[in-house]
């Protein structure tokens, strides 16, 4: 047993192997890192813009103004309108989609061939581009030939103007959002429902427990992680909704639907006020960040569990 190997020859390949093993993962993830940088650089830039007076049409006025952009918002009714409308839009869509999605998932719970076919067909709205979906509904609510306008006129609502009337615009856009995104919640909850263990339900059935009790005391609590995940996914997307609102009304009528991203888009392109636009988006980012921090923790737990069982 020759222990008198020279130290050098032993240490070198070992060090080389360690180095190789350590570099490899970094090499592999280099492209992903580049994409990260491509996200982070504009993000930091946006943060800096938000602290500047920066208008594209008045470049010579550009300068650092601290948090003035943010302070201006406090006294700006347009900002409060944006905040309010975004929150109302989010609350309405998430609650409606959650209730509807849960209801449909309960209807389709048993994995029969018919139910599976229905659940697949219901995916189609979700796979439609939201901007295009808005156009579809725009055609259907057209005052002169829209089928929906015709249908409500049968019930006496001859002057129902859908998205072009300030009093019904929010309702119309929420309707489109519900049409597109309810299937998302439905399909997640359906997967959740079907993965629940059967024993509690069988035991409840044997004991003759009423259906409402089973639903509220067994189904809902066991489904809670899925409900939290699905609704937080939607919450984060909904508060940033742009496509549907922009394609439908461009934030109008008036400022009725000026949700965050639409407002920021117009600030940037219409009023060329980069600083204000960036500040608006930073506030939105802050809101989503707080939400997504809660969300990611929850989601990772669920994902870890799903993979643990896999």
């Amino acid at each position: 047993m020759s222990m008198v190997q020279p130290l050098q020859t032993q240490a070198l390949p070992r060090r080389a192997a360690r180095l190789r093993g350590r570099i490899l993962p970094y090499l592999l993830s280099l492209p992903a890192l580049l994409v990260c940088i491509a996200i982070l650089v504009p993000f930091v830039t946006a943060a800096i813009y938000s602290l500047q007076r920066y208008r594209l049409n008045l470049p010579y006025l550009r300068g650092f103004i601290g948090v003035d952009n943010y302070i201006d918002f406090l006294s700006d009714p347009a900002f409060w309108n944006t905040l309010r409308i975004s929150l109302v839009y989010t609350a309405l869509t998430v609650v409606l989609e959650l209730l509807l999605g849960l209801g449909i998932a309960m209807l389709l719970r048993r994995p029969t061939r018919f139910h599976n076919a229905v659940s697949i067909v219901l995916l189609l709205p979700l796979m439609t581009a939201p901007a295009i979906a808005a156009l579809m509904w725009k055609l259907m609510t057209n005052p002169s030939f829209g089928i929906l306008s015709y249908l409500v006129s049968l019930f006496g609502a001859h002057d129902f103007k859908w998205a072009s009337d300030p009093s019904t615009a929010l309702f119309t856009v929420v309707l489109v959002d519900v049409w597109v995104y309810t299937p998302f919640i439905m399909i997640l909850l359906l997967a959740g429902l079907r993965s629940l263990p059967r024993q509690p339900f069988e035991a409840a059935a044997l004991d003759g427990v009423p259906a409402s009790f089973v639903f509220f005391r067994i189904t809902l609590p066991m489904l809670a992680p899925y409900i939290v995940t699905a609704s937080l996914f939607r919450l984060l997307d909904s508060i940033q909704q742009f496509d549907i609102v922009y394609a439908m009304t461009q934030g109008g009528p008036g400022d009725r639907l000026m949700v965050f991203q639409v407002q920021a888009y117009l600030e940037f392109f219409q009023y060329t006020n980069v600083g204000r636009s960036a500040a608006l988006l930073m506030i939105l980012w802050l809101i989503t960040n707080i939400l997504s921090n809660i969300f990611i923790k929850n989601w990772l737990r669920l994902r870890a569990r799903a993979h643990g069982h896999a």
Partner: protein
Amino acid sequence: MARLELNSIGKGFGPVRCAEDLSLTVESGEIVAVFGPSGSGKTVLLRMIAGMFEPDDGDIMVGGQSIVGAPPERRGIGMAFQNFALFPHMTAQDNIASGLRAKAGARELASRVTSISRLLKIEHVLGHMPRELSNGQKQRTALARALIGNPEVLLLDDPLRNVDAKLRYEMRLELPNLLRRSSAAVLYVTQDYREAMAIADRIAVLIDGRLAQVARPEEVYARPASVAVARLFGDPSINLVEVVPATDQGCLMCEIVGARIRLGSFHDQAADQGPCWLGVRPDDLAVVRSASEDAIPARVVAVTPMHERAVLLLRFPDGTEWLAALPPDSPMASADDGVFVRFAPEAALLFDRATGLRVDVPHRRQAA
């Protein structure tokens, strides 16, 4: 062919040490079983040799050349995994053929695959995908894949763990012959002491990342290096009791709940050992009806059949519980009987209570 040498291997994951000063030599054509309880570092050891981890200290040599730092594909090692690790998207044939690292010609490859699969009796399933194979066939396919390249070192990671009892028994008989054909240095990891004893030329007992004993199977069984090793070999496991041996009229004596037992065959030098563990295997106990000075009184608590024997759970008056394994033809005792327990002096093993090492033989680390 080449021998495998491990020179004082050390490996830790954070604060956990999985291997400490591990030295072992496996000659070409020799089968060494690495045996130890789960978590003792067997799998990590194999993985260091295979190149999935590198050791922190020490060196691994094949044929006198260090393989530390070499990528797995250049180590000349064949390995069969506990979970088979077959490629699920390839047929059994392709699985086996992938193990032929020398890019053999198509005809030679085919003939090698045919001959090895005939040897392992899996010719008829070569076209099957792994998911269509039984566990036994999977295991043979994995073995064929490890063997086909004529590796210098063959690592088998508990290959019989996931196959049924009948097949495991057959393979215990077949494997030694099969492995010896290849003249590779074989390291065979197992958690089953019977398997280790049936298959290996020598057994390396691994406990907490250290080699507690490396010796021929009979020797590990008959002369375990320490109380920990003695506990691992035997089912039911060895009976232990605390004793303080003393020399009396040239004989080494000890007392167990009133019975004066002569351990006469031991050398006198053991008399100065102080407190010891006395160990007797359940197979070496005799259960009798009549009292004598060297018989321990006991009460039968329960009788269970185990393998072909009857196992008696005995309780001594001081509460100590021992197991006795009796041949089926011995007169049966039943629960609650009062009996007496005896054993031959040669059957008793003494271990120092402080160090756990066996007393009568000065402990020496196994030389390569």
